[in-house]
């Protein structure tokens, strides 16, 4: 009788295991949940969460649910390495993040060695020039964005001199070097080159230096919080501008933090939740409903990154990391193919991205798109 009971119990267990759902697809987010660029990391993470929730509600990828694990780099390269090792030990199918370019630089080799596809938020120019076949951007590198901004400064603003304030980290230094190169080819003179620190809170002295330069244009290149503090201080001291910048200066978070001080800011945005495109507008509404705040470009980056992985994996019909990385090189995904990609996106052989971008201005506390710029490859 005891043997019969044991056999029945064993049979029941075997049946249950047979009926259990397939194993989860492991996604890891290794990013800046705290620290000086937590704003960007938080947006990126929430974009990922939204995409994962949507996909899981529809059955996941290849009928397997996505299990997302989060690791906080604390915006600290030392912590980022340790967290990435923990993530790799968990054997993820793909790693998303970090956003902070300095953190990307210290972890990318680890993922390359582990042969795990790496979807990053970092924008430093050099990241895609290091020959990593597993690395893919979710937004433009500076080598794509800066020429567009330099053209805008020359053609639209007719500026001859420029004062630059930038953050002294991998992101800021890469952007500064690239911008100066582009300005030189357009005969725009750099009259102030003000370096600031990541996480800096007091910009009074820096703005005095910008004022003294009396430039035609003030270019602000920093992370969102610092951009907001710079703009507040600039308005406090009556610095007239015009103020020009890239995506971070015009991001929703910068506008929210800077308040009225952000009005009048102009520039180029590679990606924005205010893009006049139906897919993006719908995404923004869903994101706001889920998280109760307006996403910035990092929200779109995280969200579209997950959908890119989903699209390629389902195209392959199997979970194969190497094949995923190989297929993404030279791939174009349109919203018609995969609505979650939001905007037609192409990755080249280095993992660099190409998509349309926007010229924008902040009007009455809102980002207003003034012009859509075509893809580089068109």
């Amino acid at each position, binding site marked *: 009788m005891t043997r019969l009971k044991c056999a029945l119990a064993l049979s029941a267990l075997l049946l249950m295991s047979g009926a259990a759902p397939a194993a989860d697809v492991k996604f890891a987010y290794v990013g800046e949940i*705290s620290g000086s660029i937590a704003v960007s990391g938080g947006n990126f993470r929430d974009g990922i969460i939204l995409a994962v929730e949507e996909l899981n509600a529809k059955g996941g990828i290849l009928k397997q649910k996505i299990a997302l694990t989060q690791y906080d780099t604390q915006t600290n390269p030392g912590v980022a390495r340790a967290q990435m090792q923990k993530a790799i030990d968990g054997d993820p199918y793909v790693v998303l993040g970090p956003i902070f370019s300095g953190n990307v630089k210290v972890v990318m080799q680890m993922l390359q060695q582990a042969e795990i596809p790496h979807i990053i938020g970092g924008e430093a120019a050099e990241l895609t020039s290091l020959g990593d076949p597993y690395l893919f951007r979710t937004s433009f590198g500076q080598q794509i964005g800066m020429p567009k901004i330099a053209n805008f400064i020359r053609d639209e603003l007719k500026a001859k001199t420029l004062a630059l304030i930038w953050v002294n980290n991998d992101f800021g230094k890469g952007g500064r070097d690239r911008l100066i190169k582009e300005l030189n080819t357009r005969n725009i003179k750099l009259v102030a080159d003000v370096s600031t620190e990541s996480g800096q809170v*007091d910009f009074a002295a820096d703005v005095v230096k910008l004022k003294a330069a009396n430039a035609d244009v003030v270019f602000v290149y920093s992370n969102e919080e610092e951009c907001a503090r710079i703009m*507040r201080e600039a308005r*406090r001291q009556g610095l007239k501008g015009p103020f020009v910048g890239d995506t971070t200066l015009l991001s929703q978070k910068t506008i929210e933090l800077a308040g009225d001080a952000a009005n009048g800011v102009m520039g180029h945005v590679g990606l924005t939740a205010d893009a006049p495109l139906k897919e993006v507008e719908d995404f923004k509404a869903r994101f706001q409903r889920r998280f109760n705040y307006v996403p910035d470009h990092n929200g779109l980056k995280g969200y579209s990154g997950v959908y890119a992985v989903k699209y390629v994996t389902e195209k392959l019909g199997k979970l194969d990391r190497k094949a995923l990385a190989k297929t993404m090189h030279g791939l174009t995904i349109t919203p018609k193919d995969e609505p979650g990609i939001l905007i037609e996106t192409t990755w080249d052989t280095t993992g660099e991205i190409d998509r349309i971008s926007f010229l924008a201005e902040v009007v009455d506390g809102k980002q207003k798109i003034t012009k859509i710029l075509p893809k580089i490859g068109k």
Partner: protein
Amino acid sequence: MLADILQLLVAGLATGGIYALVAIGFALLWQTSQTINFAQGEFVMLPAFFVLIGMGYFGLPFWPAVALGTVVTILALGVLFKKLMVDPMIHHGVLPLVIATIGLAILMKEAVREFYGADAWPFPALAAATNVTVFGVAFAVQSLVILAISCAAMVALQLFLNGTRTGRCMQATAQNPTVARLLGIPVERMILYTFLINAALVMLASILITPIYLAKFTNGELLGLYAFIAAIIGGFNQVRGAIAGGLLLGVVDNFTAAYISSQYRMAVPLVFLIAVILWRPQGLLGRVEERTV
């Protein structure tokens, strides 16, 4: 050039005024209760979140939210801090209390991060972002307002300490609590008053600095360090030393950032601190203290 120097001076004095308010707290608590509060920076960070909670969760306008924040700050960072942490710990000596306040700083920081998030939050400014031009030099109205409020608070405190009976009793308590007790001064109550004054000062510093720094859980790290350095440079056992140290540090910090480098803005005050410790260990305006071993 002169215009730049004047603008930097005013901006530096405004920031320095805030450092001074926080540094005064260090000096007051040390003098009356031998407490070195390493959570002083977080004491400045937290009231801004009390105000934001008042505005966000209770829907209050700014000034009523400030009033609510002030009451909560005085209760939590004045009364409760003394009763729950300082009173039980002080009998064990200065070092355990120092360690306890370091722990408190971490707790406060992580609690804000947990409940309010790691993001920065905008905070209303006390004055519009406009300028006044004096002799052709444009000064930020906000800087002038901060400077004026800080100076008014420091003058009021000095008048209170030197011109009122309670203030003199507090000074007597600071100089020699045993003799003060023999003279019939309610020493415990005087010590409590210093904690309440410290809470009021950090509240004021919080609403002055947060519009510039934005409300963030990490704000206390830098502020606490600057205020501590200011208190040591000026003289840890003198309120006027803390004021001088704060103002001096604000100016040095701004001129360093403008004319040396932003990267070295923290290093120069530290070099200054080392020089003061080597050549005048009691601080620029401090009093020499001797103790038997």
